[in-house]
């Protein structure tokens, strides 16, 4: 019964305000769905953190807390995989030009670790520019280890 429950596909989609409250909300929704998917406590923590970091990037760096801009958030669970998509309406960024937070010259910076943590915690992380504007990140975590 529990296995069948976990295998059911489910998607939640929201258009969220560009606020820190939305960061909490997205994390809560994601961790809730991840629990239903059967992830253990360690993975739940990692997933929650990765979603928080992605949402902060969208709210703070992408939309810059602009009340007129929304964050499109979705999380899906299906067949042992959790997929989170977060899209902002900002100017976008080039992920290849981001400084390496582990480089000695960057170690004492007070920011710049978000994407590194997302990549550390998730199995897949993809970024794409949206047309006509904004960025979408896709985070994937599998219940079966890679």
């Amino acid at each position, binding site marked *: 019964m529990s296995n069948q429950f976990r295998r059911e596909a489910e998607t939640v989609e929201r258009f969220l305000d560009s606020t*820190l409250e939305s*960061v909490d909300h997205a994390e809560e929704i994601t961790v809730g769905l991840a629990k239903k998917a059967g992830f253990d406590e360690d993975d739940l*923590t990692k997933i929650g*953190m990765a979603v*928080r*970091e992605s949402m*902060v990037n969208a709210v*703070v760096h992408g939309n810059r807390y602009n009340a007129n801009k929304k964050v499109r958030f979705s999380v899906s669970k299906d067949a042992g995989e959790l997929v989170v998509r977060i899209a902002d309406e900002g100017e976008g960024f080039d992920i290849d030009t981001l400084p390496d*937070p*582990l480089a000695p010259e960057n*170690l*004492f*910076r*007070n*920011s710049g*670790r*978000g994407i*590194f*943590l997302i990549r*550390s915690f998730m199995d897949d992380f993809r970024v794409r520019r949206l047309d006509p504007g904004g960025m979408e990140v896709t985070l994937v975590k599998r219940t079966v280890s890679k």
Partner: protein
Amino acid sequence: MSVKLNTRQVGDVSVMDVAGRITLGEGSSAMRDALRDMVAKNQKKILLNLGDVTYIDSSGIGELVSGFTSVTNSGGQLKLLGLNKRVKDLLQITKLYTVFDVHEEEASAIRSFS
């Protein structure tokens, strides 16, 4: 409030007990302000007790690093106490665990200040 801070004196060491979530917004700002206040008051020996920290994000880590830099640049020492597994893992993967002097027990942490 997402984070609770309590500062006490143990000899010449200022111990700041941090409880709750150190995340972007209220939590990280509160810790930043408290550390700045300690530096402004010329406190040279600061021990951050993170034993009751339930969650820290990259912003919180950034404030720990900023605090460490500020205290060190002012000629002081900032050390960490009581990291749980989550915080310890985060500091390790961000290569910051060896930057800080981390202790598991308060008495020995206090004694370690020069």
